[in-house]
């Protein structure tokens, strides 16, 4: 037998001089070019043609379809490939670091997923008899207890389905409390600092309040002089909506005084808990004088988000607002000889109680799948582990700030909390924040939050979360450091980034001015010409 000693070459030939120009198909290697599903339409080649039925009279009358349904025609493998190819374009936390500030894109532990798939949690229905889902009810109760302990608050509404929904729940509770006091018509003003989340003023407006902005001071925190003068010159304060740590990634150091001032003025204190990750286990909002705060389970407690899963925004309430929490309220039913956890939906279900709920926010009890994941996360960390979560999140953000401050401009002096904020001051004339963000795409990272918060010029807000290792943080910092140096030198190449993404830079201006939201079939004569 003769041995084949040749084989195929296992090392690449030196082909550096051959340039990788555009391909014939438009694909880049194994990342295929993918047209719109409508553009791949070959209706005539799909499905089965059935013979016309004879002797059957249609009973549809005048509602028979007269035109084509206009769905694209694809074979099954074509349809499957279309969506899998699109999914390959998707950037996800499972693919790489997602430094989007204010979003807390942390790893979603697989243990959470395993727990959420247990049939006792995954296969139940909200309309099932409560006696058959006592385990799930107890899980919700256990999660409620943890959330109340971590926040030192009085009660919690579990049904809000996301952060802004939780804000809505809290602000409606405040409105309900004002109605109960007979002051809903006289107290209309909600103060919102410039350092608060963008959703805060929107929520206040949605609940019928007048939004009044308070400036930020030079340290990126609430301008206390502005707040004091607002409180002195107005007598219609309903409350304040503040984010802590705020959107500049800084702890509102005057928060106790802010709470006292608002309470003295007869208002309520809403705190946006989106950044709770930075203080969980370390600071209890109830100790700060807060009356209502939502907790994003999909941020602090690691449940998936950003397209990966539904949000969940349980809202904790102080004693003053506790009676206004929305239906349903969890109660113990002892009428069957044993204690059963069940939900009260109506005043009649709670004899002797003086609760005045704002109404109902959702059809059922909230995001059960997220409750399971959040509790799995809490229990796998324990009280001590959660303390370390906050510590590591803050440490990681400060590491990024420390590593990049010699090439980029930190927006404020001193240490940050869970996110590092830079301004565009270090860039050369003509280079903007967006050029840096787009260049990060070429380096394989999702860009940071940009141009927000508005109080910082050309803001770049980076939140690494506690789940990134030092090695990953270093890789990210190496990439951003390199880009920042080019930005400072005014490298014109940055203006054209991204170069290696499936799509080059999009015309956002044109997309906003003249959005094309609907695919229109090309004219028939144009099709014939092709």
């Amino acid at each position, binding site marked *: 037998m003769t041995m084949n000693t040749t084989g195929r070459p296992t090392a690449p030939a030196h082909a550096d001089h051959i340039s990788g120009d555009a391909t014939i198909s438009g694909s880049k290697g194994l990342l295929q070019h993918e047209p719109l599903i409508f553009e791949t339409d070959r209706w005539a080649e799909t499905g089965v043609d059935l013979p016309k039925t004879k002797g059957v009279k249609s009973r549809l009358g005048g509602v028979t379809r007269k035109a084509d349904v206009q769905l694209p025609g694809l074979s099954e493998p074509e349809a499957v490939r279309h969506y899998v190819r699109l999914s390959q374009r998707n950037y996800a936390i499972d693919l790489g670091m997602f430094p989007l500030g204010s979003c807390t894109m942390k790893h979603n532990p697989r243990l959470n997923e395993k727990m959420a798939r247990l049939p006792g949690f995954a296969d139940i229905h909200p309309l099932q008899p409560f006696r058959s889902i006592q385990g799930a009810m107890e899980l919700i109760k256990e999660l409620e207890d943890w959330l109340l302990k971590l926040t030192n608050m009085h009660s919690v509404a579990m049904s809000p389905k996301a952060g802004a929904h939780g804000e809505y729940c809290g602000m409606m509770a405040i409105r309900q409390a004002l109605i109960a006091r007979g002051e809903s018509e006289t107290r209309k003003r909600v103060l919102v600092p410039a350092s608060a989340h963008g959703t805060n003023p929107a929520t206040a407006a949605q609940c019928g309040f007048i939004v009044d902005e308070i400036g930020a001071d030079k340290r990126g925190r609430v301008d206390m002089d502005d707040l004091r003068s607002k409180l002195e010159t107005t007598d219609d304060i309903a409350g304040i909506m503040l984010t802590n740590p705020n959107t500049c990634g800084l702890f509102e150091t005057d928060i106790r005084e802010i709470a006292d001032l608002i309470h003295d003025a007869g208002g309520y204190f809403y705190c946006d808990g989106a950044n709770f990750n930075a203080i969980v286990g370390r600071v209890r909002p109830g100790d700060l004088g807060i009356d209502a705060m939502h907790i994003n389970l999909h941020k602090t407690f690691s449940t998936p988000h950003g397209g990966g899963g539904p949000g969940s925004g349980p809202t904790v309430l102080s004693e003053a607002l506790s009676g206004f929490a929305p239906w349903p309220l969890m109660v113990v039913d002892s009428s069957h000889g044993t204690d059963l956890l069940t939900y009260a939906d109506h005043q009649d279900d709670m004899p002797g109680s003086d609760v005045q709920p704002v109404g109902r926010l959702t059809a059922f009890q909230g995001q059960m799948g997220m409750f399971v994941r959040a509790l799995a996360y809490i229990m796998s960390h324990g009280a001590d582990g959660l303390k370390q979560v906050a510590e590591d999140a803050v440490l990681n953000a400060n590491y990024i700030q420390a590593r990049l401050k010699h090439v980029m401009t930190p927006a404020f002096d001193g240490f940050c909390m869970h996110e590092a904020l830079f301004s565009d001051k270090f860039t050369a004339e003509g280079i903007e924040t967006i050029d840096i963000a787009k260049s990060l795409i070429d380096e394989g990272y999702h860009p940071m939050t940009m*141009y927000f918060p*508005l109080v910082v010029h050309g803001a770049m807000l980076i939140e690494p979360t506690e789940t990134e290792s030092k090695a990953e943080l270093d890789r990210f910092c190496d990439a951003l450091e390199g880009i920042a140096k080019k930005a400072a030198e005014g490298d014109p190449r940055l203006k054209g980034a991204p170069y290696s993404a499936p799509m080059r830079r999009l015309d*956002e*201006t044109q997309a*906003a*001015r003249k959005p094309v939201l609907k695919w229109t079939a090309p004219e028939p004569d144009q099709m014939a010409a092709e």
Partner: protein
Amino acid sequence: MTVKYTEDHEWVKVDGDTATVGITKYAAEQLGDVVFVELPEQGRSSNKGEEMAVVESVKAASDVYAPVSGIVREANETLEGAPETVNKDPEGEGWFVTLLMSDPSELDGLMDEDAYKKFCEGL
């Protein structure tokens, strides 16, 4: 014709009792490409400092405040179809509204061109 400026980067061009209002070149540059302008209806009255219009760019949405009190005489409807006019000619063709001033003495509190230039340099 007198031109005055506010700290919120609006300009006011005065002709008799009528004031033409827009946003300054500095503001237009800071906003970037303007994609949408929401203008008040004719006849609406605004007090000085009250939110009068909204300008939206690819970066941010900002309120435009009435630099003086008055009643809206005319809104620049070309901005609705061509918001880019604000970037092309912010202090000319890109005007927002004309106001019938109710208290022209309010103009005294606004900056002149030199003062506004200095104000921007300090930002």
